[in-house]
């Protein structure tokens, strides 16, 4: 794959005729200091939104947004609220008069189930409780993840789209993030039913870009001292962070998305093998061993069984559910996203990867 520097000039602003709110109405972004949240805020400002309320937990997130406000030259368009979504009062304060709520805050990177649950599900419940009291709320956009899908019953190479079943027993995946995200979605749907909150669920694939420099586990893992390449010829469900932010905004703003679920993946997705080759070429070489799919499945099966019979002496981090979700060959579609909201990826995959590798190189150099 060669790099092409052509970036789409498509602008979200050109298609704002059917937005459900005006640009002067207040919108809230939780997790606004995060990897995707920050880009969502940037794009909302680029679109001309005049009242973007940004909810952040840490002072680091706040200072990033303050810097953005300074560079925009118009501080008044951004309102930064520091707080904790575990505080119902903070949620009430943050959601006051809000018309659109982009909920991106989540317990990412948590390995502990209770911590992930607390920061994703309990926090979301608090936001929903607050949202239920706002009569003017027009849409709650819950940003979830591809991780919730269970591919167990799908044949290899089949299409994974929004109609696919999600993990029925997410706790058994051995992955706190999956458990928390699946429970979070259930919570959003329940509040939608019970309180009539208009909601939309967004499930991005693997979001990549500067600021998130790791190699996704869908390519492989480095847990055992050497990088085990598990993805092989699988297509990676990548979405560049700016494209993902565009999708989230369009899903939040456009008419006709209430109650729907949208997957977000870019076009022209690379295979795991191509990604790894490009990474080594552009960032740095490191040894890796390819594990064929049948072997990785057998390893996951053996690990799962050993974990069971040893009463989790080795935690069930590798199991068949995880294999099905991460390393089974699937195809991905963004057809619904394009059809409903007219999204097209602003940054082509080649260009996204170029920026990503450049950022990885810079990070490696500074380490």
């Amino acid at each position, binding site marked *: 794959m060669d790099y092409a520097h052509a970036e789409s000039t498509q602008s979200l602003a050109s298609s704002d005729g059917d937005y459900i709110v005006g640009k002067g109405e207040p919108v809230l972004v939780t997790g606004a200091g995060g990897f995707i949240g920050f880009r969502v805020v940037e794009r909302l400002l680029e679109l001309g939104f005049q009242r973007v309320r940004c909810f952040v937990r840490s002072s680091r997130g706040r200072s990033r947004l303050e810097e953005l406000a300074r560079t925009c030259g118009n501080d008044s368009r951004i309102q930064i609220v520091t707080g904790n979504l575990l505080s119902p009062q903070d949620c009430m304060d943050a959601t006051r008069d809000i018309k659109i709520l982009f909920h991106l805050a989540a317990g990412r990177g948590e390995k502990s189930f209770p911590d992930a649950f607390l920061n994703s599900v309990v926090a979301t419940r608090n936001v929903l409780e607050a949202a239920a009291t706002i009569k003017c709320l027009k849409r709650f956009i819950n940003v979830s993840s591809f991780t919730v899908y269970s591919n167990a019953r799908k044949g290899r190479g089949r299409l994974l789209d929004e109609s696919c079943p999600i993990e029925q027993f997410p706790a058994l995946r051995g992955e706190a993030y999956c458990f928390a995200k699946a429970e979070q979605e259930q919570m959003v749907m329940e509040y939608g039913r019970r309180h009539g909150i208009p909601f939309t669920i967004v499930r991005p694939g693997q979001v990549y870009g500067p600021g998130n420099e790791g190699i996704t586990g869908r390519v492989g893992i480095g847990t055992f001292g050497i990088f085990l390449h598990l993805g092989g010829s699988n297509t990676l469900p990548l979405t560049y962070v700016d494209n993902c932010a565009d999708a989230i905004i369009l899903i939040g703003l456009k008419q006709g998305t209430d109650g729907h679920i949208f997957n977000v993946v870019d076009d022209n997705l690379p295979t795991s093998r191509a990604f790894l080759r490009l990474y080594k070429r552009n960032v740095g070489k490191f040894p890796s061993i390819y594990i064929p799919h049948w072997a990785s499945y057998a390893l996951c099966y053996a690990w799962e069984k050993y974990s069971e019979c040893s009463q*989790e002496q080795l935690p069930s981090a590798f199991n068949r559910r995880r294999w099905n979700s991460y390393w089974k060959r699937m195809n991905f579609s963004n057809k619904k996203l394009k059809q409903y909201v007219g999204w097209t990826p602003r940054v082509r995959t080649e260009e996204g990867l170029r920026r990503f590798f450049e950022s990885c190189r810079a990070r490696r150099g500074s380490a």
Partner: protein
Amino acid sequence: MLRIAIIGCGKIADSHAAQIGRIKGCQIVGVCDREPLMAEQLAKRFPVEQAFSNVGELLDVAKPDVVHVTTPPQTHFDLAKTCLDRNCHVYVEKPFTVWAAEARKLIDIAKEKELKLTVGHDDQFSHVARRLRSMVREGFLGGAPVHMESHYCYEIGDTGYAGALLGDKRHWVRRLPGKLLQNIISHGVARIAEFVSGDSPDVMAYGYTSPALQVLGETEIIDELRVFIHDANRTTAYFTFSSQMRPGLHEFRLYGPKNGLLLSQDQETLIKLRGARYKSYAEKFVPPIVVAGQYIHNVATNVRTFLRNDFHMKSGMKFLMESFYRSITEGTSEAIPYREILLTARIMEEIFCQLEKQRAGATDEFGLAAGIESRK
């Protein structure tokens, strides 16, 4: 069948539920958290039939024999007292209580009501810690301990617990008198308390905020601590807590008049430090070979334990729980002697008082320190 309940369904409660599940003759009959969703998620995953958000209801409906208190430390005293008042045996996660006086009171209640009480100093019951205890009892040191060194380090990253703590000025850990230290150092201090004689050793503490944290704008959290302890018999101890030193050790050195022992919790190794010296150049060549042999022996022991499926990360917790439950069902002695629980609480309180005085000294010579004294 012992009926067990857990109050507090955060991260450490997962470890409790998992280890309880490995012990025969007991059953989790209820879990409780003031946040109902947290109680439900724990009940769903382990699985437990009943989840509660009210402690009174848990005790009334589930009727546990034993309650594990795994909430933030500020609530330990009230919850443990409530459970003791309702005739339940109580396992309290570390740190036992915020203040030593509270620890004293809980122990008095337990004694008066003939109930059992313990604290989650489970590191002291790992395989390697039990081997150390056994060797000390067999007289390997050649007498009472002369000196101890306990390292208990904690790597502060920017994610998870530490990230949440650093990013949130209202985090519950910040409201503890000893802040981060109070929530973490119990394991390292308890190791010393086990071998210190008397009830009130002298403590000298020095602590500061590391430059790495200062760069992040942190001024409240003390993450570097050095402590010197000595008892009436002139047994001395150094305690080190550090977030910055590498490797981040969890290590205990115990020296007697004849020999010493070196325990590494991270690697689960125990090395015998021979007191006698070899002659001349033999001292340069023989001891390294002997120590290498000991490390190989440790590896073999760890592999055997792993193959027996008894090398879980929290195997010390399981052992402590089993000892605690046995003390209830068979009337054996306390899993952790009450003297040690109290001594650990006293040493920690003294450390935090001194740190507070040092901090207050910079601006207000006695004001803040007087505040902490009055709260004790």
